[in-house]
């Protein structure tokens, strides 16, 4: 799989302060990769380093095969960035804002015009395109900032807290837009967020950061495994069951069991694929199952355990 971002041994200091410490990760083409961590974790600094705004003190970075330290301008031409605040020129209209950033990205006048019309339509701003953006709502500003980031058909998109400060309705709208446009345009996306719900909904893989270091990384399932040995599944039965019989049976994929009452039982399995085996064993033992409920460990639980539990990566 093509690697769009490759980071190895990345370390960066702000003066005496170590902002990033020995960071390693890769982002594959077409995936949504999340940098997850509290304020001060080093997410924004990482994005700045990837765009060649700073030179790293140590380590190696490749973005689209280019070195940001020496080819930052080329990377910024091929990438789109949504900063933490929409950072729009509020005395200018949406169309003027897009024209400004389009020309700076190296688009021709015809390309700027065509892309502006496409994006204004896609992001639901066509009717207000000639209004000054200072008169826009927060949600509209964020949508325009997203449109600006997508202006150049970027090969990679960096989104820094894309729903920060938005009301829930606007946040859902922005999230859906990111999902839709990403699917339509096949863009690789790197999201910085401390919004766990957002990360869970949008990201294929995550890097959990704390104070500039990597705490863990992988898919949500990979991270679940880091904090819990397996997937817990709760079973309820119509009548009391002799669980000793079940514990005596050899069930593939079973890691751990727990008897909650004579009609309730929990089992930890390696993953979802092992659940039918457990059900089959119970059925063979004559148990009458009325409910099977896999226990989802939310990203929030994983995140809190990782942040509090120290380095697991």
């Amino acid at each position, binding site marked *: 799989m093509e690697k769009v971002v490759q980071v190895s041994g990345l370390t960066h200091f702000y003066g005496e302060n170590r902002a990033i410490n020995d960071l390693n990760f890769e982002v594959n083409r077409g995936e949504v990769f999340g940098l997850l961590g509290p304020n001060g974790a080093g997410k924004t600094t990482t994005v700045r380093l990837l*765009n060649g705004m700073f030179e790293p003190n140590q380590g190696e970075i490749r973005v689209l095969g280019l070195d940001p330290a020496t080819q930052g301008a080329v990377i910024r031409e091929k990438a789109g960035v949504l900063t933490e605040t929409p*950072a729009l020129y*509020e005395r200018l209209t949406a169309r003027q804002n897009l024209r*400004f*950033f389009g*020309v700076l990205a190296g688009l021709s006048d015809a390309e700027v015009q065509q892309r502006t019309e496409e994006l204004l339509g896609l992001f639901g701003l066509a009717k207000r395109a000639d209004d000054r953006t200072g008169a826009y709502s927060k949600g509209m500003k964020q949508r325009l900032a997203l449109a600006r980031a997508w202006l150049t058909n970027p090969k990679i998109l960096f989104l820094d807290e894309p729903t920060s400060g938005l009301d829930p309705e606007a946040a859902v709208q922005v999230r859906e837009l990111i999902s839709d446009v990403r699917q339509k345009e096949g863009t690789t996306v790197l999201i910085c967020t401390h919004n766990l719900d957002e990360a869970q909904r949008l990201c294929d893989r995550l890097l959990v950061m704390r104070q500039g270091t990597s705490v863990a990384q992988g898919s949500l399932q990979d991270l679940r495994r880091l904090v819990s040995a397996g997937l817990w599944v709760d079973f309820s039965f119509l009548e009391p069951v002799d669980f000793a019989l079940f514990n005596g049976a050899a069930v593939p994929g079973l890691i751990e069991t727990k008897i909650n009452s004579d009609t309730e039982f929990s089992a930890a399995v390696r993953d979802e694929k092992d659940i039918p085996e457990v059900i089959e064993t119970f059925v063979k033992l004559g148990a009458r199952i009325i409910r099977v409920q896999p226990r989802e460990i939310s990203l929030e639980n994983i995140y809190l355990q990782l942040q509090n539990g120290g380095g697991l990566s």
Partner: protein
Amino acid sequence: MNWRKIGIIAWKDILEVRQNKSVVLSIVLVPLIILVIMPLVMLLVSGSAGTAEAFTGDPDLQMMFENIPPSIASAFANMNDIQMGMAMILGYLFAPMFLIMPLMSSTSISAESFAGERERKTLEALLYTAATDAELFIGKSLAAFIPSVLIAWVSFILYVLVLNIGGWSIFGSIWFPLPLWYPLVFWVTPAFSALGISATVLISTRVQTFMGAYQTSGSLVILVLGLVMGQAVGLIYLSVWIGIVLGLVIWLAAGILFFLGIQQFNRKKLLYQNAS
């Protein structure tokens, strides 16, 4: 160097400045007061009865007329006392006041352009663009330089019209501009614009707001006031040659400040200052 990018940066900044009422108001009001209203009032008052006596009877004015260098005195040949008084005040003593125009407009526009980006939190998005540091710097500097020089030149045309039309009853001919104004307008004025911009750029990298940058760089007006005072007390008389030398000195000063400003204007420093 991509001139299309430089052009769009300047276009955007000029568009933004045009929407900023306080900047536009100050750019329009100052020339109107200094170059239209004040000279008109003086010309009207000088036409009234008793002015001639006031000029001939005032020992300070007489001493000023006697001490003017021969190069300037030759321009006053064949003028009566009122004409000479008005030519002295509006043609010579007002000349340094004209330099307030490029200085004020260049500092206010460049403060809006450089420090304003930081104040309105648009700086980071701008730095994430593919424009190089040099393109950003030149684009922003041109956005302040071109309008400030144009404003000064338009103000000069207005001043020429006011002095010749308003002073027709006194002079009865087209008497202005005097020769010293040509280097002043076409050589010293752009130099003062460049000085205002370079000083503001340097200051803007250290302050967080438009007002902070504007007020600090506005102290350059002391230079203009120094010239006004120097002329009033007979220490210096602006002439074509002094204009050329003055322009050269100001261009040099602006060049040095620009060099220092370019050193400060890079993404890394700007982002560090933004974060601090």
